[in-house]
């Protein structure tokens, strides 16, 4: 199935099933067994009650879920909670408030332009969540489509699609993201315009365009093993169409790995967006991004004003951590064999 020597070939040769490649999506796998175990027990998610009982057994997973709930609530109600406009007209009155320490009026202070930090962090959180969830959804759609097609058809279609996937895995993602995000008016070979990465939709498309590969490989692996099952054979013998087998027998049994990937992909996307914004290539004013806030306050490092970089980063860190904890908890709850 693989051309010898191609990058990533070693993973497949190891008989570890399909390790999701690159980034955090792969980091919490119990590595060697996950792929096989999920494939061996294709029951998808167990009945809900048992599922939640298993989930609740892991304290870290529960903590992650609680944190996530709090952060999502805060983001959704940001317009209500935020004490001030995050991107106000810079009047003399606002500018006079620049670089204030924490006070009742500004619980975590103001930035160098006098804007309320708490409001900006809340709105930045909204952008991070929107980007993270958007990228996860798009990468899942693209990855499932390509992976399912490759895994179901097999043969040269599989070979071609996986070569294509590997190619995307070889190029250093962050560097490519930087190059492309730097373009103010991107187009697809002059045929149609693409949304610029300086706004949230463009950023989502861009990050998803370089984030779908692990999903494609996971789904392909699942399909390759599932399609040999007796029940699929039986469905085929009963005259079920390919479409029916794929959509009613194979995809539902792949839900577990898909959900886990999606959760972890949110974290990766959030981190990537923040790095791009920090490097000046991400979403721009008037959208508020946590990475951009940190870049704005970078000149306070080495002074007593450095709390300006602490809060946006802390929110970023806790948000990604919460998604990863939840993703890890879901994995274990879906597949109890995946950990000792």
């Amino acid at each position: 199935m693989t051309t010898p020597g191609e990058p990533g070939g070693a993973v497949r040769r190891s008989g570890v099933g399909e390790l999701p490649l690159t980034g955090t999506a792969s980091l919490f796998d119990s590595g060697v067994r996950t792929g096989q175990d999920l494939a061996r027990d294709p029951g998808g998610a167990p009945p809900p009650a048992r599922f939640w009982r298993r989930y609740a057994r892991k304290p870290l997973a529960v903590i992650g879920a609680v944190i996530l709930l709090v952060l999502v609530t805060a983001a959704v109600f940001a317009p209500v909670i935020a004490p001030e406009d995050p991107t106000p007209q810079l009047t003399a009155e606002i500018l006079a408030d620049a670089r204030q320490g924490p006070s009742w009026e500004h619980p975590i202070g103001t930035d160098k332009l006098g804007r309320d930090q708490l409001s900006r962090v809340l709105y930045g959180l909204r952008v991070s969540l929107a980007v993270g969830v958007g990228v996860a959804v798009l990468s899942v759609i693209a990855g499932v489509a390509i992976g399912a097609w490759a895994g179901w058809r097999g043969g040269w279609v599989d070979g071609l699609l996986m070569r294509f996937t590997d190619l995307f895995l070889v190029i250093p993602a962050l560097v490519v993201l930087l190059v492309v995000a730097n373009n103010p008016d991107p187009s697809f070979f002059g045929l149609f315009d693409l949304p610029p990465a300086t706004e949230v939709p463009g950023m989502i498309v861009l990050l998803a365009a370089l984030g779908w590969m692990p999903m494609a490989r996971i789904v392909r692996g699942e399909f390759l093993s599932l399609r040999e099952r007796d029940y699929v054979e039986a469905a085929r013998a009963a005259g079920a169409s390919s479409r029916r087998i794929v959509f009613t027998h194979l995809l539902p049994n792949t839900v577990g790995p898909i959900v886990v990937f999606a959760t972890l992909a949110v974290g990766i996307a959030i981190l990537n967006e923040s790095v791009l914004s920090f490097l000046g290539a991400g979403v721009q004013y008037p959208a508020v991004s946590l990475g951009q806030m940190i870049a704005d306050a970078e000149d306070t490092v080495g002074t007593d004003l450095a709390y300006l970089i602490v809060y946006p980063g802390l929110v970023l860190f806790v948000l990604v951590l919460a998604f990863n904890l939840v993703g890890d908890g879901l994995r274990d709850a879906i597949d109890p064999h995946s950990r000792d």
Partner: protein
Amino acid sequence: MWKYVARRALASIPVLLLASVLIFLLVREFGADPARQRCQASRDPQCLTRVRAELGLDRSLPVQYLDEMKNFVTGQWGESQRSDRDVSELIGDAMRETVPLAFWAVVVSLGAAVLVGVTSARHPGSVRDHTFTVLAFAGIAMPTFWLGLLVIQLFTYELQQLLGLSQPIFYSIPNPIGSGWVDSARELALPVFVLSVQLIAGWSRYQRAALSDELHGDHIRTARAKGLSERRVVWKHGMRSSSTSLVTVVAIDAGALIGGVVVTERVFSRPGMGTLLLAALRDGDTNVLIPWMLIAGIGVILANLAADVAYAALDPRVRLTSGNPT
């Protein structure tokens, strides 16, 4: 073994070619238009056409691609469009900054990841194991650039305040032998640490998973039954097979390492490859950009090739089955 290596190397050539096409397309077609970047400040209405012709951007993409490739392969990388210095010279200078950083980060990360992973796998469920798990989660969720800034803040301001020093703490570390090694170690310590955190967190989880899997295997039971010391059982018999999966993950993370280098150099203002890339992007300096990207692509492919070879060296079955089990 050598036949296997040669076969792998040959097979990575088409990947390299396709990757070069993709990289070229991304820079030229999806990246910012260098002519427009140059003409931003110009009032000359002919500026765009003139600069396009100057840079050869008015030719068709395939022609440009072949030209760029010919220049890259023959070593005629031209001059930076900003500083008029030779691109090969610029990249060479930047490499001398970046290679030690990346090298030490990989060495430190591998060492720490193996130690942490082995400790966790040998004592699953222990306090140490739980601590490492929590730390790994934290490490993976940590934005590298933020960690870098926090570390700089700690060492340039907070510690100095706390200890009442007159200068940042790093300059207070004595260098009694006056050795260049101490200087460069002092300079590299923080960037290497920042770059390593995420790698250690990810790799140690892999090492733990792979080894704890291995420790349940029959060959380990046999080794224990023979009366070998636990140390020997773990480090010799367990590590050999579990290291294959770590090798693979390390190679896969080569791309992530390049990204990490860019961020780390930016945060610590080190004049390496990352800083060069950011400057080239800002200035629309395609003469630097395309060789830079190609070198990065070659680096990732070579890392994967090295992993394949290491894999075969560690697991003889790979060579014999010609690596095509599925």
